[in-house]
């Protein structure tokens, strides 16, 4: 089943074209990895999916992104509804300067939920889903900055889970973390894919190989190859993909 359809997507920052005619079908309840060298447009593509690029005034977009039979750019007058369904986790852990509880409940509170009991219940559920509950249950009121880097990033994932998204976008979520923290996040993502569609941008090809079902290789704003992760890494069809995964450049 297809979750997101990307049709003839082109994207510009000012005069610079960053994405060139992207056509993709993102599958439901799978982990799709986006790999490619720096500046190839993988983060930009990810940010088109929840319209984070709207924040950049000089950007221009052409083509369509279809999610649940709706055009992401044309059929969502209230973009916050889209962003509640398509959550995002960023490169650097970016918890708010608030308590752990306030961080996790932020999205719910922004959605207008005020009932303390409901908030408590969802915060606990979300932390359990992200395997963070046991580590923080005794200090929900302490600052999120008291957590380690890896815990902070898992808190950011929890924060996104709390609003129960359908798709979750991760932009190099482990690049600032050590291998142990990375392994915990990878395990969590594999667990979460039973419930939601996951798209992850990663610099780390091994990571893509370890966790993803499908891999997209991008170069200079174009999709070079998109196939099952196994076949892409074992038997790349395109020479450019082969050069990249063999470490000849990138």
């Amino acid at each position, binding site marked *: 089943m297809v979750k997101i359809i990307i049709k003839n997507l082109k994207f510009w920052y000012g005069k610079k074209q960053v994405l060139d005619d992207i056509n993709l079908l993102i599958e439901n309840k799978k982990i799709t990895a986006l790999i490619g060298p720096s500046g190839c447009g993988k983060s930009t593509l990810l940010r088109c999916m929840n319209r*984070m690029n709207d924040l950049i005034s000089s950007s221009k977009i052409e083509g369509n992104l279809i999610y649940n039979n709706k055009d992401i750019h044309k059929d969502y007058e209230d973009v916050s509804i889209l*962003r*509640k369904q398509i*959550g995002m986790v960023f490169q650097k852990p*970016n*918890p*708010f300067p608030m308590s752990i509880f306030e961080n996790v409940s932020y999205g719910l509170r*922004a959605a207008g939920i005020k009932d303390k009991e409901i908030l408590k219940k969802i915060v606990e559920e979300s932390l359990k889903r992200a395997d963070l509950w046991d580590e923080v249950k005794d200090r929900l009121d302490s600052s999120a900055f008291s957590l380690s880097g890896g815990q902070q990033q898992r808190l950011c994932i929890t*924060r*996104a889970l709390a609003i129960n998204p359908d798709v979750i976008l991760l932009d190099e979520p482990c690049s600032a973390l050590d291998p142990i923290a990375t392994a915990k996040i990878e395990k969590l993502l594999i667990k979460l894919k039973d419930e939601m569609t996951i798209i992850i941008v990663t610099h780390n090809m091994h990571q893509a190989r370890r966790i993803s079902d499908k891999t997209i290789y991008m170069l200079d704003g174009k999709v070079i190859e998109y196939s099952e992760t196994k076949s892409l890494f074992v038997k790349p069809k395109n020479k450019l993909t082969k050069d990249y995964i063999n470490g000849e450049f990138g």
Partner: protein
Amino acid sequence: MVKEKTKEKFYFNIFRICMLFTIFILGFILLYVIINGYKVINFRFLTTMWNHQDITQGGIFPAIFGSILLGIGISIISIPIGICTAIYISEYAKENYFTNMVKISIRNLAGVPSVVYGLFGLAFFVFLLNLGTSLIAASLTLGCMTLPWIITSSEESIKSVPNSFREASIALGATKWQTIKKVVVPSSLGGMLTGSILGISRAVGETAPIIMVGATFYISYLPTSPTDKFMALPYHLFILATQHSSPDAKAYALGTALVLISLTFIMNLGIFIIRYKLRKKKEW
């Protein structure tokens, strides 16, 4: 290697001498005021009305009272407008020619001499709006003068909030206003209030503008309405130091100066406490 070490020492000492020089000047002023002013400070000096005939028989209470009222007036006028303007400029306004002109103008306004604001206040608030020389006219005039300081420092404070906080909030489906209300303002409030109080304590120490728009050297009553004239510490101090014939005037001027400095010090202490309380939670 040896040469590098001497160089290192040389520059280090230059910086140290500059620092010591600054401390020396500040320390000298403070000591001068304290040593020469503390003698006249007593309960009567601080709490009774001014006695124009025999200054040793009266106090400067009306001037303290006037300056405090002025500070409150300035705060009410300039803090909300200043902070809201800063939020608009840094969060909502689009980056374009007009916005840049507004920003540059505000920065230039921050450098306009206070006496010019006094002249503007006299023409606009006192005469055109017919407020007369009064507490309200002085508050409005100094409020206008403080605005660019508050806007500039609040802008800096808002700018120092990492963009990743805004992105995280937006990505969780929060609107722009929710992001500002729940993330940006709480994270920058300490800096905004610090800038505001600093600006207000500078404004309360101003003399030139308030002479034109409402301060008077001597009134026998405390102001009870915003349209009353008022006494203020800096102007009082100026008159005592330059105009009064009493042989004790100089000592009283220094005593007044000490009270004014203490008032500023108390305000700065307030800033310190606010910063400390807000910083506990906000480390990034």
